[in-house]
């Protein structure tokens, strides 16, 4: 089903692209001026739009330019109803415009609203959008679509209760962004809206047909009548009908059966000739198909059977030729499409013939047929072509019909799997139960059944019960042929099974494998999740524990203190851009831990609240963090994935995004993009940054970029001019927090908890403010202080307060350098080596010395101090140990004796540490 859709979609795109040049709008009727100030602006009620007409109140598909699925435009297209059609009167490209009312399709809605939908095909009338966004270019209209309007509950119930209803859309409620309302007061003209029932009952009266169907029928007629019409148009038309998957159109074909039959009766030969000149067809068979191929057999059989039934006419033979030609391997797309035209009509013909059944029986085959015709694999086309001629044959010579039918049946018996045959047969008498195999292979039904009927002796002829008066004869002759057909059947099964069968397998199996893809490769199918803990998480009990939990950086406070100005600046910037529907960039800088990202998140939170209240248009928030990307171009991938949910390569994502942001589109949602750690997106060509800042300036992109980085002068420092120019001058700097602000931040978090001495907080914030102004640091220090208090109290839980002493201890732990302690705890020889280094520095006057010289100094020192001198290897090991803890810096080991040694500590520190140590040891 899926693959068929996408296949269809590709054609569809082709069609649209081709159409974009050709489609022109011809206004029908007289234009009315609605606004006196715009005397050139004419409103119309109807227009001819290339392949179809548009009338006010029609439902149409509007192209979703942001749709990621290029191949299948309709599945993500918007649905809208035309309210006005007008010509702006300016001679510009987009002078033909339409005002539409939007409808929500399922995929456009939020998850929780999606749950409310009764059916995947339910539409919701959009009551949110203002009319301005409903003013679109007519060119964006892809096609018409069928929407059932349901106005009362009873209707809804009967509609939903109807298993046989089509896959078309229906609308019952409206959605204003908050609530779902019934449509009750919303009345439309009855002209277009038909309940399914009324449609069905009005089968034969052309007056009651729905509009699009009439129009399409007209087209199909014209195709068949006017055979000199340009091929392109035919193709288009055919595809148009293929696109329209819903019931209405199919039903329409049903109605058009009779005229079609008439036409084909009128002009049968020219068509055949066009399809295949007999001689070339013969040649083709000879050349391209080996004598044992199915085509060859068919010819023989046909001749044989013709002989049996004593009927041989020119028309008959020409038919057979045409069939064979079609089944030949070379088929141009033009021919393909033409076949499918004819084939369609055949299908409908058959449907019409079955109409002797009850009302419900009719609609089931219809719905079954509605989508599969798009599934045009080569083999199927062959079969269709055959069945095409079958119907034509019916009209002209009865026996040929039988031959061909027989042929088709045998062919299909080869193609279809046995179990499918059985299934088809079983379900046939009860069309109400929808069977999957049928849905997938509906076209084979006819032929399959016939093959079954031939192999089984009991003959179920109701599938061949034609509406025409020929039906009796058909049935009879089929049963006559039965015997010989059986023979041939088995023969064919033995000989030609391989080729055709594998084809049908290939057609059927990939779908199944695709559905159950092995999980190893498809990452998208995984849901990221973490294992759950087994036991309930303990909650902090005491005041200190509570304070500690509140002081954790991750504990998000209700509001961010101390960043009010920055907050309001960013908020108003984004808000204005959202309201204007434009885009823009803002650069935010500040040292780490000054609340840049937190403020932006706060802004987004507030904006989302505003959206909920309906004050702002809905927007999409996307966050990209340079540190979370493996390389800068991954930014495109992530952005694209957030926008469309698809994974593509970075190059592709870049081009897709570029396309998206450079084209205007109907109903584009504004995007708010937070680019964190911007400096990491730097590349040599700077194309990542260039694009990120260029897109917002495109008129229709509606992209707002908030770029966050640490350095204030980043745009000037690392960006080339064209990038920094695009970034613009909307900049903001987050100053490091002052001690008062830090104090406020800490106090606001522990508000109401008696855990901290006021002075202690001040000490911590003053210390931090003096160093970095990093709020994270201040919070960490306070958190560590609470731990120190707990450690020191040793279980004494009563009334603990964090005082200056504890904060000081925490500060000591975090900021004191451990190097002096480290030096004091080294071994004697290591200390001697450090002294030797100092002595050598002193001797040479340089801050660097080769190892060999220090070694000499070391040996001398040892002698002086009265220790046994260690060997060279030992001293070398000592040197390496000291450098592994980075008290010393040494060169690469391959220089051995000549490697240079430097101190990583100040000489004073070494002197201090070692003097202290000496005193300690002597004491």
């Amino acid at each position, binding site marked *: 089903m899926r693959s068929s859709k996408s296949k269809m979609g590709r054609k569809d795109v082709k069609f649209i692209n081709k159409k974009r040049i050709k489609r022109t709008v011809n206004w029908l009727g007289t234009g009315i001026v609605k606004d006196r100030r715009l005397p050139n602006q004419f409103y119309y009620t109807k227009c001819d739009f290339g392949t179809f007409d548009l009338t006010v109140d029609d439902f149409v598909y509007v192209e979703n330019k942001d749709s990621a699925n290029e191949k299948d435009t309709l599945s993500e297209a918007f649905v809208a109803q035309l309210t006005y059609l007008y010509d702006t009167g300016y001679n510009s490209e987009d002078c033909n415009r339409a005002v539409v009312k939007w409808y929500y399709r399922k995929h456009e809605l939020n998850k929780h609203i999606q749950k409310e939908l009764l059916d995947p095909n339910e539409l919701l009338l959009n009551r949110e959008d203002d009319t301005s966004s409903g003013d679109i270019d007519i060119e964006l209209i892809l096609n018409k679509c069928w929407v059932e309007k349901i106005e009362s509950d009873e209707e809804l119930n009967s509609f939903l209760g109807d298993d046989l209803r089509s896959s078309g859309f229906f609308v019952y409620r409206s959605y204003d962004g908050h609530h779902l309302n019934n449509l009750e007061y919303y009345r439309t003209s009855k002209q277009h809206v038909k309940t399914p029932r009324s449609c069905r009952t009005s089968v034969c009266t052309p007056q009651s047909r729905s509009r699009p169907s009439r129009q399409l029928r007209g087209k199909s007629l014209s195709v068949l009548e006017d055979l000199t019409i340009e091929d392109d148009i035919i193709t288009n038309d055919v595809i148009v009908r293929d696109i329209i998957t819903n019931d209405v159109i199919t039903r329409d074909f049903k109605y058009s059966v009779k005229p079609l039959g008439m036409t084909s009766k009128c002009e049968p030969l020219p068509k055949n000739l066009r399809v295949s000149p007999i001689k070339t067809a013969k040649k083709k068979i000879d050349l391209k198909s080996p004598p044992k191929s199915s085509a060859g057999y068919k010819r023989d059989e046909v001749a044989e059977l013709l002989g049996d039934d004593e009927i041989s006419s020119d028309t008959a033979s020409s038919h057979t030729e045409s069939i064979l030609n079609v089944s030949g391997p070379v088929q141009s797309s033009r021919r393909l499409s033409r076949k499918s035209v004819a084939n369609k009509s055949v299908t409908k013909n058959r449907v019409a013939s079955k109409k002797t059944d009850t009302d419900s029986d009719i609609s089931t085959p219809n719905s079954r047929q509605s989508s599969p015709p798009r599934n045009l694999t080569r083999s199927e086309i062959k079969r269709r072509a055959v069945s095409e001629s079958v119907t034509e044959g019916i009209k002209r010579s009865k026996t040929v019909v039988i031959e061909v039918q027989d042929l088709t049946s045998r062919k299909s018996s080869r193609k279809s799997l046995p179990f499918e045959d059985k299934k088809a047969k079983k379900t046939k008498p009860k069309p109400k139960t929808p069977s999957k195999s049928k849905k997938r292979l509906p076209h084979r039904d006819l032929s399959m059944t016939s093959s079954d009927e031939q192999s089984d002796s009991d003959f179920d002829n109701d599938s061949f019960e034609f509406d025409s008066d020929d039906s009796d004869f058909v049935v009879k002759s089929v049963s006559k042929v039965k015997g010989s057909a059986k023979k041939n059947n088995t023969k064919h099964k033995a000989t030609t099974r391989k080729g055709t069968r594998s084809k049908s397998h290939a057609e059927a199996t990939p779908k199944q494998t695709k559905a159950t893809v092995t999980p190893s490769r498809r990452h998208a199918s995984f849901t990221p999740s*973490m294992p759950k*803990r087994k*036991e309930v998480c303990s909650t902090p009990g005491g005041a200190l524990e509570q304070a500690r939990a509140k002081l954790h950086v991750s504990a998000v406070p209700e509001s961010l203190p101390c960043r009010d100005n920055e907050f309001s600046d960013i908020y108003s910037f984004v808000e204005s851009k959202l309201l204007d529907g434009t885009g823009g960039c803002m650069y935010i800088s500040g040292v780490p831990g000054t609340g840049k990202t937190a403020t932006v998140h706060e802004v987004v939170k507030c904006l989302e609240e505003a959206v909920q209240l309906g004050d702002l248009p809905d927007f999409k928030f996307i966050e990209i963090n340079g540190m979370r990307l493996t390389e800068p171009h991954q930014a495109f991938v992530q952005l694209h994935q957030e926008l469309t949910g698809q994974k593509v390569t970075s190059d592709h994502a870049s081009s897709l995004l570029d396309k998206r942001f450079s084209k205007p589109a109907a109903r584009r949602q504004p995007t708010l993009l937070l680019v964190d750690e911007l400096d990491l997106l730097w590349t040599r060509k700077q194309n990542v940054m260039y694009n990120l800042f260029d897109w917002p300036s495109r008129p229709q992109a509606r992209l707002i970029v908030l770029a966050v980085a*640490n350095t204030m002068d980043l745009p000037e420092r690392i960006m080339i001019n064209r990038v920094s120019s695009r970034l613009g001058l909307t900049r903001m700097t987050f100053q490091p927090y002052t001690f008062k602000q830090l104090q406020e931040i800490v106090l606001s978090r522990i508000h109401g908890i008696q855990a901290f001495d006021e002075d202690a907080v001040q000490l911590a914030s003053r210390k931090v403010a003096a160093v970095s102004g990093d709020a994270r640091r201040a919070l960490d220090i306070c958190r560590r202080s609470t731990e120190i208090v707990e450690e020191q109290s040793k279980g004494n839980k009563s009334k603990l307060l964090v005082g200056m002493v504890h904060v000081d201890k925490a500060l000591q732990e975090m900021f004191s350098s451990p190097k002096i302690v480290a030096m004091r*705890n080294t071994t004697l020889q290591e200390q001697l080596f450090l002294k030797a280094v100092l002595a050598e520095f002193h001797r040479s006057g340089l801050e660097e010395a080769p190892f060999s010289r220090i070694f000499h100094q070391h040996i001398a020192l040892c002698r002086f101090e009265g220790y046994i001198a260690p060997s060279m*290897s030992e001293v070398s090991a000592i040197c390496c140990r000291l450098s*592994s803890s980075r008290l010393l810096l040494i060169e690469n080991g391959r220089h051995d004796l000549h490697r240079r040694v430097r101190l990583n500590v100040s000489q004073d520190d070494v002197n201090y540490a070692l003097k202290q140590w000496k005193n300690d040891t002597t004491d």
Partner: protein
Amino acid sequence: METLDAVQAVLRERMSGLICPELLGFENETKTLHDVIERTAAFGESNSILLIGPRGTGKSTLLKKILDDLNKDKRITRNLQTVYLNGLLQTDDKIALKEITQQLELENTVDGRVFGSFAENLRFLLDSLKSGDQLSSKPVLFVLEEFDLFAHHKNQTLLYNLFDIAQSAQTPLCVVGLTCRLDVIELLEKRVKSRFSHRQIYLFNKQSFKEFVYVFQTYLQLNQDKTIEVKDSKFVKKWNTEVEKLAKESAMLDILRRQFNTNKDIRALLNLMVIPVGRLSHTHQYLLSSDFIDSFRHHSIDSKAAILHGISVLELCLVIAMSHLNEIYDGEPFNFEMVYNEYRKFSERRSSMQKFDRAVVMKAFEHLQQLELIMPLDNSSVRIQKEYRLMALLLDKSQILETLQKYPNCPTEIKQWAQSAVLT
């Protein structure tokens, strides 16, 4: 003598470092780290902490002890996942990510293997960690050994993300880094540094000599209750008193003092004990101080002097010539021609010496280069005739003189030449 074999086996196992020795000191540090990890498991509090100390101070041992301790508590075992990473094994973020995914057994692990590109894996891991929350997710303990090496990864992506998650309300993490670099904080990029909680525990080897001797003794003594392998309690008693005696012997104490002065690392002490323990036999039932003296000599031997013992007289002559050149030119590099010239002067002066062809001398010169006793200074890519390639001697004069003392059958002329003042 099965008992002796058993004793040997027990001691060997101890020497190999498989069994954690008792840690002396570090009570405060242990408690701090213990509390941090326990809080992560119990409250879902995210933390990051660094354990810093020189090699062999017992950082990993400390952590292992704490985890063993915590694992006794079922409440914690069931609520804590542990991911071990080592900077020497996970040399870049890509490998590290795969390892993490594998150890966490996330969904994209198939049969213990992780597929997908680096970007996909990173995204998936981050999304997974993001999907968790403080109260319901199982906390994860990340142990990063050789933490400093992770800081050399590109952009420090892994560290940034780990610390960032630890600072935000996602899956609770406890990141414990172990490193021997004291300046590790300076390695962190400013954003990573800001996200790190700055808890650092410094571990230094504060042992005094007394404790060092005590450690030595406990390592060798057999524990009567626990060592089931050694059944002969009489022997065990005897063994223990012998070890006690040994630890009081002055020769032994001398060795231990020297060891203590150069390296008080426990691992080095264990290495020192390996040879004596291996020498135990029927005839040699108890450890003697002489064994340790041998072992110590073995460990403190100068490797280059040892190599010099094995070279030929000609090569020795060349080495002496080079050392003279070094003295003459004050450490400037030399080439073969200079060395050959020096050698020729010597051999002509001392006629009793056997004279070698230039080609033979060249061969000897190349052999010295292969032994890495001399080292070419320029890059090998520059094509210079090998006779004129500049070389540097990687030996100290003291090493050469020391070797000559022990060199078997060293001609006296050579000794004299080596000891002679150059500038006469």
